[in-house]
């Protein structure tokens, strides 16, 4: 019967039921599923929040998941893709997710603003950010971007650093995460990953040339981080997770990465074997995962000097809000 013909008690019951249903649906943040293994101790559910849809730049994590490294370490990991999310540091800080993907410059900025984060593992020794130009434009150096229109993230560390250090001014256009304008306009310049967009540009007949943003001297790590208190209270858990992640990335880098590629292709139909193998080769070519052996870099190494350089660079740009306790922000220490 319609609500206005019910008696008062039934109406109250119906409305309370509706409100309760609303609360329950609002409150159930998708918790990671708790799986009870019939043999052995239960796996600890953990969410790893990434910063894009499933892609080969996250392959090491998928490799670790597919080959059971996480399970062996006692974790039931949910790799959660997340594109264009600006509040991931807050999600980690409020423990809604346990681990997240990020870069060392953003991590240091967030830590300086009091967001309690701790970096635990660099999976790329160098951030694959670059600018992509048409070869015909003749641009081979970042200095030549002065006065040009560039599609790049406004206000980000590398943009501010590039402009200040090289003494150039860019006309910044917000990212639209597509290649349409680049393909249509030979003078168009955009920010992208060394491991991704150039492949699609070449496929569409464009002679693309990339300039890594790290050539400006601003060279962040790509890393995973967790909540600072979580790292302090559960150091063995964090170390186990990091070790499993390292195994995954090592296996991916030294092998053919087939397991990870299969998982990524299943989640994101945009990626084919061809595109993912190209990405993997680009990672090797640009020495992203294990870095430059000659400089003493290896997979999973945090170099304290590089971190301190980044802190002083960010300080020069006025992007920090106070001092940073480096040992607190990097609880697993610096390997040599």
């Amino acid at each position, binding site marked *: 019967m319609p609500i206005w013909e019910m008696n008062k008690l039934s109406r109250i019951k119906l409305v309370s039921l509706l409100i309760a249903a609303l609360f329950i649906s609002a409150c159930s943040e998708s918790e990671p599923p708790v799986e009870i293994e019939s043999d052995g101790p239960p796996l600890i559910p953990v969410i790893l929040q990434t910063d894009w849809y499933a892609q080969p730049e996250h392959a090491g994590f998928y490799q670790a998941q597919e080959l059971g490294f996480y399970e062996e370490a006692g974790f039931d990991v949910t790799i959660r893709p997340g594109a264009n999310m600006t509040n991931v540091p807050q999600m980690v800080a409020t423990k809604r997710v346990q681990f997240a993907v990020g870069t060392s410059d953003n991590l240091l*900025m*967030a830590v300086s603003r*009091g967001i309690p984060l701790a970096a635990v593992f660099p999976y790329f020794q160098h951030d694959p950010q670059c600018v992509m130009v048409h070869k015909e434009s003749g641009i081979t150096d970042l200095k030549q971007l002065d006065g040009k229109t560039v599609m790049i993230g406004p*206000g980000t560390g590398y943009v501010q650093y590039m402009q200040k250090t090289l003494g150039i001014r860019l*006309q*910044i256009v*917000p990212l639209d995460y*597509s290649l349409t*304008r680049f393909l249509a306009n030979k003078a168009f310049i955009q920010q992208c990953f060394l491991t991704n967009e150039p492949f699609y540009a070449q496929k569409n007949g464009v002679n693309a040339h990339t300039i890594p943003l790290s050539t400006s001297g601003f060279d962040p790590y790509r890393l995973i981080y967790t909540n600072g208190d979580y790292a302090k209270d559960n150091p063995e858990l964090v170390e186990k997770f990091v070790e499993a992640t390292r195994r995954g990335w090592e296996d991916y880098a030294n092998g053919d990465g087939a397991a990870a590629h299969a998982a990524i292709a299943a989640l994101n139909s945009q990626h084919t074997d061809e595109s993912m193998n190209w990405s993997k080769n680009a990672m090797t070519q640009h020495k992203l995962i294990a870095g430059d052996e000659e400089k003493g870099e290896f997979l999973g190494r945090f170099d304290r000097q590089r971190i301190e350089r980044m802190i002083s660079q960010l300080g020069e740009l006025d992007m920090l809000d106070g001092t940073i306790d480096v040992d607190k922000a990097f609880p697993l220490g610096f390997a040599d």
Partner: protein
Amino acid sequence: MFNSLKNSLFWPTIFGAILISLWYGSIALFAIPEYQLPPLHRIAEAGFEERNILLSGAGQTLIACLIGFFTSVFGGVVLSVLLASNPWAYKGVYPYILILKMTPVIVLAPIVILWAGQGLVSITIITFLICFFPIVVNTTMGLRSTDPGLVDLFKVYNGNSWQELLWLRLPAALPFFMTGLRVAAALTPIGALYGDTVAGMGSSDEAGLGFVVMIFSAQFKVPALFAAAFTACSIGFMFVGLVNLFSWWVLHKWHDAYLGDE
């Protein structure tokens, strides 16, 4: 007069005080960190620190608002006159205007940018797309709602259709037009700010407010983000306030809605 001013300020002040205490209360009660919900004084501090970039951003956005708004008004009125002048034009064209209105601007924006490039032109077109509909709908209704008795009177005095339009229909449509104007004024800042985030251009100190918001977001400057939001809000208020003032100036001497207040 001062009595009514006092009255109209009293309740908002009381409610404002309640809101402020709720703000600080929840921060204290739930131990909300600054990067989730900054306290108001921190927002004011950040606003002061970033005042240069906020002011230049507000200026840029205001310019985009004004250009977008006047383009919408002009285009909207022209469109309305065309639609109202011919019943077949109305029946034929209006559905397509509806289709344009129903397509979300978020979907149209990339297409606009592809054709019009980055910068003020695209932002103006996006603002136009958001604002023109209320103006067209209201003005067309106004133009078609002229008292038929007066229309007949014009015919009796041998007025041609141009004179009818200029001296009868347009003035009679003014109140309707003003309503559309006020709605469009409220929507214009949204258009300009959204346009900024997709079609904006500039180095950090030439940016509009939408751009500034993106920069603060990238740098985790949460109190500054809130300050930018408040700045955007005040631009909206200023804009709507100006239009309301204009509306009062045009109509207050003769329209029932205003005469009734006294």
